[in-house]
């Protein structure tokens, strides 16, 4: 009772702390000619864009100027634009600062060259055709496979283009005809790098002012080098060898070289002298930069350039701009329905739990493998041979392992009553400590604490196949009459269960690892499939309180089936709102 009150208080406290950690949302703006329909914030660091895009959009935006030349452009780090035009003869025309020159494609740096190579392929398709483009003739463009987004960072208020930080190619999520969703992550990082940019610039400027410090650091470096050299010399001198003499010489040479270069740097620095005017100029620049940094910290914006790639690998760019200021959204509304469903499930579960507490009887159908548990333990007792229990090879946080722990609790009680020996080799150290206590407790519960043997539960090893080898050894030597496999299993499942079959043990398995179920079916007498594993502990204990949760699971599944019938009917009649509820954009 006290624990329950404590829980209510704790829950209230947790809910009260929420506003403390709230953050102030930032302003949102969208500009440009991208037909941005909607956007959402998934969490503090990611944004979901929804926009409309049709093949015609791409084709109409494909840059083919009137002279029939394919063009693309690139923004240089200094903010200037360079325009590249691919001529039909394969050479490239570069326009920069108003001047034009022609070069060969091979002379260009790689990213832009790749773009042009792709353009060149487009030439083959459209070289002879005149504007306007006909979508049918370029069917490959209607087959968009990737959407690429380049994001440019802006300081929103200054509206000053700074630099293209990175280009991203994102998988999109397409709903119906031409709506695309894109999830955009890492806004936090972007903001950080944007601010870092400023800070670095300020550092550089400051460095220009304080060249005295540089001198000192160089002097320190020289001292360090000397120390290192002397140490190495000592080490080498301790040994006597011809080769080492050679190394010593080379070491000296290297040392002299490095010190020499440092010294020449020092002299260069000495030559440099900054007059007062220049100093003031730099100081002013720093002040300006600092102001911008302040602005940047407050708000910054991002431009998205959308490009699309057809499945055939052709790429077309469409410079659709939109500027969005990232803001922080407190609650992820995208997950609202998940929240409602989970809360609903919790309420159903607690209601059923309460009604079970009041004594309402709950029916649960027989589960074949579990009805056999009693028989299996009885068999072991008759034969005077041990019962072996394998709890899977996963961690304690795995729900399958948790289910397995509960099942062992029940089985251990039955085993304790008959005083049949029990062997539990465990794969994970934490699971081992828990299982040990569970088994001890079971023996105490049925009033036979003396029958409990300390070494019946033990840790074997965490390595998958070493564990399987160990278990195989135990099976062959101790010849258990009954083996339980409950929990999460991987490839080792058949190694153990076939060996168990070989010694003629009765085997009952239960796992939700779908890939291993067929092997258990092949080699075990009974197999609990999937969810039956989770129902097992409640079923075995026949505890009405635990059985109530099985009921809750059934309600959940009934809801899923209801949604399936309803959803399919609605979908087929063209109403999509259930899909809308279930809509979540893939990561």
């Amino acid at each position, binding site marked *: 009772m006290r624990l329950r009150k404590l829980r209510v208080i704790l829950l209230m406290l947790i809910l009260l702390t929420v506003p403390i950690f709230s953050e102030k949302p930032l302003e949102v703006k969208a500009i440009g000619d991208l037909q941005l329909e909607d956007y959402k914030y998934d969490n503090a660091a990611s944004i979901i864009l929804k926009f409309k895009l049709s093949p015609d959009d791409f084709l109409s935006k494909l840059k083919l100027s009137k002279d029939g030349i394919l063009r693309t452009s690139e923004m240089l780090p200094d903010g200037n634009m360079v325009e590249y035009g691919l001529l039909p003869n394969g050479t490239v025309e570069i326009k920069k600062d108003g001047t034009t020159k022609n070069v060969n494609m091979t002379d260009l740096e790689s990213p832009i060259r790749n773009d042009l190579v792709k353009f060149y392929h487009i030439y083959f398709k459209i070289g002879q055709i005149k504007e306007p483009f006909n979508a049918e003739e370029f069917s490959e463009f209607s087959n968009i496979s990737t959407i690429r987004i380049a994001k440019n960072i802006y300081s929103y208020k200054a509206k000053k283009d700074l630099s293209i930080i990175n280009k991203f190619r994102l998988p999109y999520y397409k709903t119906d005809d031409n709506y695309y969703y894109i999830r955009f992550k890492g806004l936090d990082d972007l903001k950080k790098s944007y601010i870092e940019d400023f800070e670095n610039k300020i550092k550089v400027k400051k460095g220009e002012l304080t060249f005295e410090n540089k001198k000192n650091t160089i002097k320190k470096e020289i001292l360090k080098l000397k120390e290192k050299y002397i140490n190495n010399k000592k080490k080498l001198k301790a040994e006597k060898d011809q080769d080492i003499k050679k190394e010593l010489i080379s070491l000296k040479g290297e040392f002299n070289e490095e010190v020499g270069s440092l010294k020449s740097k020092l002299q260069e620095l000495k030559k440099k002298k900054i007059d007062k005017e220049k100093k003031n100029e730099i100081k002013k620049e720093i002040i300006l930069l600092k102001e911008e940094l302040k602005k940047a910290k407050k708000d910054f914006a991002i431009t998205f350039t959308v490009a699309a790639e057809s499945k055939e690998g052709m790429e077309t760019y469409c410079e659709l701009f939109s500027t969005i200021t990232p803001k922080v959204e407190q609650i992820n509304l995208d*997950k609202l*329905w*998940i*929240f409602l*469903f*989970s809360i609903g499930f919790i309420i159903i579960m607690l209601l059923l739990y309460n009604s079970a507490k009041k004594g309402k009887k709950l*029916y*649960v*159908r027989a*589960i074949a493998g579990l009805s056999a548990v009693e028989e299996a333990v009885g068999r072991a007792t008759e034969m005077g041979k041990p019962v072996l229990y394998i709890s899977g090879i996963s961690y*304690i*946080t795995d*729900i399958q392992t948790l289910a397995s722990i509960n099942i062992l609790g029940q089985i251990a009680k039955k085993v304790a009553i008959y005083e049949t020996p029990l062997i539990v080799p465990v794969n994970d150290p*934490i699971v081992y*400590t828990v299982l040990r*206590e569970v088994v001890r407790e079971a023996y105490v519960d049925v009033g036979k604490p003396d029958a409990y043997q300390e070494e019946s539960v033990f840790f*074997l*090893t*965490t*390595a998958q*196949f*070493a*564990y399987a*080898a*160990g278990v*195989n*050894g135990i099976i*062959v*030597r101790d010849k258990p009459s009954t083996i339980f496999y409950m929990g999460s299993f991987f490839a080792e499942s058949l190694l153990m269960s076939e060996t168990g079959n070989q010694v003629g043990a009765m085997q009952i398995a239960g796992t939700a690892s*779908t*890939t291993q*179920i*067929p*092997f258990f*079916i*092949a080699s075990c007498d009974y197999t609990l*499939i*999937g*969810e*039956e594993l989770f*129902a097992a502990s409640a079923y075995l204990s026949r505890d009405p309180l635990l059985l109530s949760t*099985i*009921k809750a*699971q*059934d309600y959940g*599944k*009934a809801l*899923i*089936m209801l*949604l*399936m019938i309803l*959803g*399919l009917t609605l*979908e*087929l009649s063209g109403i999509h709102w*259930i*899909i809308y509820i*279930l*809509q*979540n954009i893939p990561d």
Partner: protein
Amino acid sequence: MITIIGTWIAAFFTLAIFSFLYKDNPFYKFAEHLLVGISVGYGIGLIWHNAFIGYVWIPIINNHQYIYIIPTLIGLLYLGFLHKKTIWLIRIPISISLGIGTGFGVPLIFQTYIFTQLRETLTVFNHPGMGFWAIVSTALLVIGVFTAIIYFFFSWKHKGTVGVLAKIGIYFLMIGFGASFGLTVMGRISLLIGRFLFLFKDWLHLIG
């Protein structure tokens, strides 16, 4: 030389493990126990260098991130295991990882397993231009999911209509398991081929 010794030792242990197929024998026993011991030792080595030095020692001692002393102290509660009276202390680190894992897991399970899977099931017909065969197949998919869920209902006895539906459900489940079985065979035989190649080629040099 060291590689040749290695190959011979590896071949010995390979054969020792294979000998279990005939029957349990001292060679297998020796190999098995050595494997268990070595694998624990290997775990100790890896945890010491990667986890203890990497996550605990370097951050706290070298990088002065003293905040990590808190999880270290929590982790040290596992030492309670060494004595009967303090053994309850290990419940604390366990309860922490369990609480965080389960609490965080619930919405995630809802999202990845239930919502996504349900959406995929509902939109199966949303492809224009499906032929007759495709529609039949898709309908089968939906029927399969539906009936197999009914099999997992614990509140109903498998009798009457429910019994028939559950039966159909189990048929689907069995076909699924058959497919898993068939798919796995190739992978497992590949591994056997790998071992044979080691024995015939690297060790005995029977083939080029």
